């Protein structure tokens, strides 16, 4: 009752969250609705004619064995990006946490990649691994590994995963590092006095205490791998060789913006949206149970 009398009206709280609601509506709900509408249409590129075709865009997609196989590619790519991204950044965060001298230099250098645009990251790594002029490709050639990601699917996958992980690395690092800093020193010191070595302290104290951070990063990284990696793939491999790096999100981009096939692209984004919603639900339902929010 006291709360009520303080505001006088119940309109204020709605007004206060209105800007956030407006942003959500304009940038999330509205585009999603448009995608849903477009997925049921056959349109020419300029949108001068549009015909309702029901589920035919979806039917055509699921009749295409190559579309189905790009689910596998996407899973492989996302798993590699998320797992190696999280493990590496946690490792570096744990190392940086132990450093006593020149701490800020390490921190700055490790956070740097975050300021780089995805396309630049891909071009950078693509340049290093360029079969004809790349420094790394040249070095690999010297030790007997012939590098040509234009022809070798495994190498192409390695390259796009590497660039994607590197791009997201700083973000993960920052969260893990902050999480480690927040662990009470007394706990760690107590463990040390009890004779636990650095490795034991990490696995028995730091890791469990980081579980909320890890869970958050897991969700964020999965969304990143599913949605935000098409500029990297576009610049590094263009989905090739063959279809070996053609993930779902890259296919949406390619069919929509290069192929100008709005209907199919819309249907694909609806499918992808459903997958990510399902994955996020599963994560919150099953994995979050194991998270300890102190």
């Amino acid at each position: 009752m006291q709360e009520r009398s303080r505001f006088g009206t119940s309109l204020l709280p709605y007004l206060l969250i209105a800007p956030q609601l407006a942003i959500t509506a304009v940038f999330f709900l509205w585009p999603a609705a448009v995608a849903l509408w477009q997925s049921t249409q056959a349109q020419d590129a300029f949108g001068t004619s549009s015909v309702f075709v029901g589920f035919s865009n979806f039917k055509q997609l699921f009749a295409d064995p190559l579309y189905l196989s790009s689910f596998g590619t996407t899973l492989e790519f996302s798993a590699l990006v998320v797992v190696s991204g999280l493990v590496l950044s946690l490792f570096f965060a744990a190392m940086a946490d132990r450093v006593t001298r020149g701490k800020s230099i390490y921190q700055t250098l490790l956070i740097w990649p975050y300021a780089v645009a995805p396309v630049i990251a891909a071009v950078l790594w693509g340049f290093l691994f360029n079969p004809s002029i790349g420094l790394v490709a040249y070095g690999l050639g010297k030790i007997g590994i012939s590098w040509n990601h234009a022809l070798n699917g495994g190498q192409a996958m390695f390259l796009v995963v590497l660039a994607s992980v590197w791009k997201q690395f700083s973000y993960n690092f920052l969260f893990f590092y902050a999480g480690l800093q927040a662990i009470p020193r007394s706990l760690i010191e107590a463990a040390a006095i009890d004779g636990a070595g650095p490795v034991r302290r990490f696995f028995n104290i730091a890791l469990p205490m980081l579980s909320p951070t890890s869970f958050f990063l897991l969700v964020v990284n999965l969304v990143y791998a599913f949605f935000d990696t098409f500029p990297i793939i576009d610049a590094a491999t263009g989905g090739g060789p063959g279809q070996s790096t053609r993930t779902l999100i890259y296919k949406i981009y390619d069919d929509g913006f290069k192929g100008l096939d709005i209907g199919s692209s819309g249907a694909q984004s609806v499918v992808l949206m459903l997958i990510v919603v399902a994955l996020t639900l599963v994560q919150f339902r099953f994995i979050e149970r194991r998270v300890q929010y102190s």
Partner: protein
Amino acid sequence: MLKPRFLRSLALGAAMLFGATQAALATTEIQFWHAMESTLGDRLNDIANDFNKSQSQYKIVPVYKGTYDQTLAAGIAAYRSGDAPAILQVYEVGTATMIAAKKAVIPVSQVFQQAGIKLDTNAFVPTIASYYSDSKTGQLVSMPFNSSTPVLYYNKDAFKKAGLDPNSPPQTWDELAADAAKLKASGMSCGYSSGWQSWIQLENYSAWHGAPFASRNNGFDGTDAVLEFNKPLQVAHIQFLANMAKQGTFSYVGRKDEPNSKFYSGDCGIITGSSGALASIRKYAKFSFGTGFMPYDATVQGAPQNAIIGGASLWVLAGKDPAVYKGVAQFLAYLTSPAVAAKWHQDTGYLPVTKAAYDLTRQQGFYDKNPGSDTAIRQMLNKPPLPFTKGLRLGNMPQIRTVIDEELEDVWAGKKTPQQALDSAVERGNDLLRRFQNQAN
């Protein structure tokens, strides 16, 4: 004291604002979105500046919008939101998409007619004009601007070192394979490489050997065309390249211009690439190089036929003020005037689009001073085109090219036979054609 002063500055400000608006009204701005980067973009800006100085009624504003596909996507998005440029540069494989968008574009022949400026279709190089003309009326639908054909580049120094004659580039595919083997034997890591495999090894290979790429005269006669590049002629050629790949004399390094850097770095002795790459090769190659015609298969009767073009043309988008289109017509006429077109051709390595520009360049002695710079145009004019070697007009062509890239990569990697890959490419490509046909209707 303060008040009158404030009023005075207010009045002055208003006057200036009014004056500025008046000045802006006097010239009509015309947006021109294009995909010409770095030096090509500079040349294009020069042309626009010269045009703007030549008269005071119109002002062409060229805007670089990224790669060809990005430019097209940007133009379409702008059209959908009602803010389209008057002139949009669209790559050759987007032609069918543009023609299908009848409400969104105005054929250039109509733009000229309404502006009262004469447009002589016969002034253009026939194979270039026909690529961008209505197949029924023969009227130009877009303005030819930058066209290229695939040419062969070879490293003369490497030829000498390998004991080959530096003044005779390989003319047939057999000769090319033999030369590439000798280059490899002389210690080169790559004998032959090629980018743009769909454009060069299938689209142009078919035309160069007098064969259709698709039915209905490569789609010029209707959107119900089906792909036909899985015939014995093309399968044999892909098999030939696959054999070279196996022997290590053909190196595949990428879908686009990647072989160019392998050529001017001295890694590859021979490449086939766009004639538009001449400027950058001339700039970076530290050895003497030569150009030649695309190789042909000597066992095919009538070969070589003629090359078909790549590159882009300029489209006029609908929905602007009539005054704008007058300016557009004037600018397009200016672009194709012999002096301007000839200079563009000489500066960039793109083909001269009009016969007058070609003649002018010849009279100026440009080809004598720059041997090899006329290879692209001579290939194009090699023989009068057959109905199915005038070009391609297929919907969803950018995606069909991606399909071909994917399938051929499986051949170079040894995962598919040429017949399997081409059959699959034709099947997948036909699905895309049918999809386009349904959308367009």
